[in-house]
């Protein structure tokens, strides 16, 4: 099978190939001119269709020109030989760490293939003692529930970083060679600390197939139902779904989605909720004051407090956040435990894990963004395009809509999520958390964020496969271009031959 990297060029080639056909048709409409001294005695017959001369070399010339255009289009389409049809394979890597322990049963449901797959490769990644995870390959069938329960991580299990999961994904997927398509699935509940390298790994890796990240809705404390959080979305329908999806990827379980702008969760829901996240989506003009009110951020702001940012500050920040007056009113006690366990709600955790100190009037001095302060999440053209506004207990993600701008679609969703996560990485990097990640990645050898290092990964089967694919694509491209060149030479030769014949014919006609 041949896979095209840029199928649009194939269509462009098809359009280009139609040009010679049009030219031939247009030229065929030209009348054949012949001399006849007694032409004045002819009965004019303009209605009759002029017979089109179709010599074999003309047909050959037409086919050559069409083939040249098609070959050039196909060459630019980036064809790659991906082997014969061998079906599909589903590779599932399950995070068997502390993150998925509360939702282990739900993880099993997510680990199975969605549809019929010719091959299933299932593996668990357990946190190791020295930080190096252990890869446990399972059979090609999903274990039964009892067996699955036995595989559940124990209470002392640590976190599994996304980098570990990606590396495990490579190892397991390496066994599924020769398939037409490869569906890779990672079942995890990522924390913000794990996202940075993972996102870069996703962004920088040349994965031959599609990677699907499945994030189950998890309670923030063991034994708590997933509905412990309430998300109130104040947005129009498409953006509401967008934000809800974003929150799902961010690890926020959204049980209640209020509909319509200005909707509010009822008081009972908020009272029962683990926490309340309010999302407000508005237009740019309504967010203008928000941008203006945004306090200075960045290294200057970071250096103001002079404290060393890092993961160690999470607990401190969490404790200080709990000290806020509004937190006492709106946050249930369970959230304290969640924050203490490092599994605090992602919206807040994002702001806490970055270690950034956002100065604000009357705010707690360190580690906690002031109520009403703004952290830019997205930047477009150097200016903030979306922002998270920090309330005492709420986090408003503001998505500005520029008048006239198209509604965000599914493609924009991917861009949005990537930008959100990129921003998270950047914030975390500025906070110094990157050092820990980098150390981790260097230790496990994934080389996240560095494509050259990813290609030099001794276990990088994916990288090797990509090189093979790239070489096959290059050879196919060269072959097509060489074919186009050869056909071009043949076209020139045929054209000259036809021109000479036409000249001779003209001389004979003149005689």
């Amino acid at each position, binding site marked *: 099978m041949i896979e095209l990297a840029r199928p649009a060029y194939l269509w462009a080639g098809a359009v280009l190939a139609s040009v010679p056909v049009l030219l031939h048709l247009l030229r065929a409409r030209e009348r054949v001119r012949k001399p*006849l*001294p*007694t032409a004045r005695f*002819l*009965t*004019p017959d303009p209605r*009759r269709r*002029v017979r089109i001369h179709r010599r074999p070399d003309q047909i050959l010339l037409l086919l050559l020109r069409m083939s040249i255009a098609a070959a050039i289009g196909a060459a630019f389409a980036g064809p790659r030989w991906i082997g014969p049809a061998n079906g599909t394979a589903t590779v599932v890597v399950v995070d068997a760490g502390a993150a998925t322990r509360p939702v282990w049963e739900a993880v099993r449901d997510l680990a199975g293939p969605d549809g019929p797959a010719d091959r299933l490769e299932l593996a668990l990644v357990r946190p190791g003692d020295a930080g190096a995870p252990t890869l446990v390959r399972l059979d090609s069938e999903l274990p039964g529930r009892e067996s699955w329960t036995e595989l559940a991580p124990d209470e002392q299990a640590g976190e599994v970083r996304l980098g570990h999961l990606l590396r495990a994904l490579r190892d397991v997927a390496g066994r599924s060679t020769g398939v037409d398509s490869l569906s890779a699935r990672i079942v995890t509940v990522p924390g913000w600390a794990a996202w940075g390298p993972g996102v870069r790994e996703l962004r920088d890796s040349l994965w031959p197939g599609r990677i699907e990240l499945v994030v189950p809705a998890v309670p923030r404390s063991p034994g708590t139902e997933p509905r412990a959080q309430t998300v109130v979305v104040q947005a129009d329908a498409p953006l509401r779904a967008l934000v809800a999806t974003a929150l799902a990827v961010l690890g926020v379980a959204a049980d209640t989605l209020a509909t319509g702008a200005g909707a509010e969760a009822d008081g009972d829901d908020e009272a029962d909720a683990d926490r309340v996240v309010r999302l407000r989506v508005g237009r740019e003009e309504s967010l203008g004051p928000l941008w203006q009110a945004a306090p200075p951020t960045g290294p200057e702001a970071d250096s103001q407090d002079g404290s060393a940012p890092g993961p160690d500050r999470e607990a401190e920040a969490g404790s200080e956040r709990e000290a806020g007056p509004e937190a006492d009113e709106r946050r249930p006690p369970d959230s304290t435990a969640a924050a203490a366990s490092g599994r605090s709600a992602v919206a807040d955790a994002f702001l806490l894990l970055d270690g950034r100190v956002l100065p604000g009037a009357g705010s707690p001095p360190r580690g906690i963004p002031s109520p009403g302060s703004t952290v830019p999440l997205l930047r477009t053209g150097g200016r903030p395009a979306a922002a998270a506004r920090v309330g005492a207990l709420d986090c408003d993600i503001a998505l500005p809509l520029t008048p006239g701008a198209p509604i965000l679609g599914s493609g924009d969703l991917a861009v949005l999520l990537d930008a959100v996560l990129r921003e998270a990485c950047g914030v975390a990097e500025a906070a110094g958390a990157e050092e820990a990640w980098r150390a981790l990645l260097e230790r496990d050898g994934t080389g996240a964020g560095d494509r050259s290092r990813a290609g030099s990964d001794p276990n990088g089967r994916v990288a090797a496969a990509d090189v093979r694919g790239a070489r096959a694509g290059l050879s196919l491209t060269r072959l097509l271009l060489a074919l186009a060149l050869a056909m071009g030479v043949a076209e020139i030769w045929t054209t000259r031959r036809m021109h000479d014949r036409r000249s001779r014919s003209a001389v004979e006609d003149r005689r």
Partner: protein
Amino acid sequence: MTVPDEILPPELLDGLDDLEWAARMVARGLGPGIHTSPFVGQGEEFERHRPYQQGDDLRHLDWRLLARTDRLHVRRFREASNVHTVFVVDASASMDFAGTGGDVTKLRYAVLLAAALGYVARSGGDVLGLVIPGGTRGTPATILPPRPGRERWKAFLHALQATGPGRLDTTSPESGPVQGGLPGSLAVALEESAGLLPRGGRLVVLSDFLDGQDVDGVLRTPGELRARGDDGVAIRILTPEGLGEAGGEHALWTDPEHPERSLPGTPGRDPGYRARLDAYYDAVSGPLEALGVSWYEARSTDPPLPLVRRWIREGSGRRRR
């Protein structure tokens, strides 16, 4: 012995570089006794020596030969018939056409035919002249007044051989190439040739008579010549395609003499085409024949021998007055 017609097709004659040879082949193909023997006697062109006989005029005694050989011989001369024949070969653009299936253009066919007829006429003692229209200003490109002698015959053949597209205009000091004639040039050439002919002369016109701009001018000169007692011969040369016998392909047909005129059609499948063509030539040949001008029709793909044979059989274009 009479040679079959198909032995001397126009393609064969056209391939001969020597036009006199081609003309002689045609004449010899007529068979013995067809053409008249040359008149020997008073004339300007030396024919041969003959031993002196009693009664011969001593003025014709070759004294130099007597001094060298000590024998008496008299000089015999080719006697001119006093019939001046001027050939007019139309070299207009319409004559430079061979048709789709032909190899010999109408002009080349006219040249071959003029050479063969000239050979026969000269053998009969005629004095030959030649006028070829196609000058750059509508005037004749070549004018050879009728004169006896072999030198004139050579010049006659040379001028014929030089006639054609891209050949030199022998009358112009600049000697530019002759690329067909101008409209009306045939009528001018006929007027020019009429001035070259004494009374009792003969005008032979080889053309397709498609000088459509000036048909009246073409008809005027033969009428004047006939009125004063001269003979006239008109040989119409057409290609099969021009006759509507070929050209089954639909195309945009362009008149070479008027390139701006183009008509779409199919000559071979156009009944109106042949009718209009016949009507046109009836309008040309009718008045000419009424004046006593002999009208011949030739096809450029046919061997010229039958026409030459017919020419001789009918008295070389001479008519009783």
